[in-house]
């Protein structure tokens, strides 16, 4: 470092930088010098190191307690508690927790499926039981002009006093409207059931109605509300006994 006025000024500013007492203009100028001459950082490091030597001048006070031993005891305690095992055990714990949760959810799902399968099995067994009955009758349903694609069937087991209605391609209805099944016998129309299709337009319905066994034919109408005593809407499907 030369002794001209500029370098003298630079040195003082470097000292001011380390002491943290530069104003904005000085700092901006010095930053330009740092950019132009990265070696100046070495000067800064030396000044910083100088400042940190100051505590050597301090009176030779000593701690009242055995600070060295206290620090080492603390460090040892942390080494014995902290190392990787707890971290590993934490990971294992987390994995176990997530696995348990996943298995729990999975188990719940499986139980639901099992319950559903059991229910289906019972239904199938019941259906088989129905099919085995003598005098069973099958009614075939076909959509009329308004619903040409609608179709389905009604299975009637008179001895069990049960019937199963299955329909498809029925449009959903609005408001209080319902589909209604009517048993037609000479001089009489008996309302047997109200129903609405699911989202896919299908109907599965189990019935128990004596009127079905005695009917000559069957009709399905769209009614403005449930449980009408006489059909108010036009027939949209008609059933024919095929067995």
């Amino acid at each position, binding site marked *: 470092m030369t002794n001209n006025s500029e370098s003298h000024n630079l040195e003082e500013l470097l000292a001011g930088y380390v002491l943290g007492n530069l104003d904005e203009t000085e700092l901006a100028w010095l930053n330009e010098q740092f950019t132009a001459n990265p070696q100046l950082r070495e000067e800064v490091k030396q000044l910083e190191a100088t400042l940190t030597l100051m505590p050597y001048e301090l009176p030779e006070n000593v701690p009242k307690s055995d600070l060295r031993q206290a620090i*080492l005891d603390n460090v040892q305690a942390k080494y014995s508690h902290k190392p990787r095992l707890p971290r590993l055990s934490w990971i294992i714990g987390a994995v176990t927790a997530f696995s348990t949760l996943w298995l729990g959810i999975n188990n719940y799902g499986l139980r639901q499926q099992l319950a559903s399968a059991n229910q289906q099995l019972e239904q199938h067994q019941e259906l088989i039981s129905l099919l085995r009955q003598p005098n069973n009758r099958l009614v075939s349903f076909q959509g009329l002009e308004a619903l040409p694609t609608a179709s389905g069937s009604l299975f009637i087991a008179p001895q069990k006093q049960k019937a199963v209605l299955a329909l498809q391609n029925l449009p959903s209805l609005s408001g209080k409207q319902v589909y209604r099944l009517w048993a037609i016998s000479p001089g009489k129309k008996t309302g047997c059931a109200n129903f609405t299709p699911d989202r896919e337009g299908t109907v599965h319905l189990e019935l128990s109605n004596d009127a079905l066994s005695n009917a000559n034919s069957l009709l399905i109408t769209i009614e403005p509300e449930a449980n009408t005593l006489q059909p108010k809407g036009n027939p949209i499907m008609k059933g024919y006994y095929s067995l």
Partner: protein
Amino acid sequence: MINADVETKTKTDEAIFAAFKGGDSNALGTIYDRYGLLVYRLIYRMLNNSQEAEDLTQEIFLSLQERPNYNPQRGSFYTYLMMLTRSRTIDRLRAKRSQGKFWQDLGKIKDLVGRHNSVNPIDSVSIKERATKVRQALESLSSNQRQILELSYYEGLSQSEIAKRLNLPLGTVKTHSRRGLLQLRKNLHNLVN
């Protein structure tokens, strides 16, 4: 065992800290033997309370384990440790004094923690020898230079606060502190390098 002790004593601070970082907890004892008292004395000087100085000394040494941020590429371990100590103690002072503005000036010094050369300034000289040299170096400064440097370093006062306290113009305070530090570096050239 004796050979091991001799070997430890001849190791650089940086090598000892690396050993500590690698899991050798006894290496911290060596670091304490070298600088523990200086750390304690600096804190005691700044806080003027022996119990607080002990607690904070312990805290700083334990922080070396919890957050071993020292990077040898950035400077000597000693400089890092002392700047860390001063920075932490200033934080403590700040909490105690709960003042605002002048701490902003200190921020620049605090930010310098960890940015030092890799020279170990005090490898082979005993603490007492170094203490003697530092005292002599400080005695060679003008009384204003020394007083201003000490107020700035130990009490964390801003230059304007020092100017107010000593009833001196701000420019004069700045000049004294800067020239004082430059003189100190010149006097301690051998220790710094």
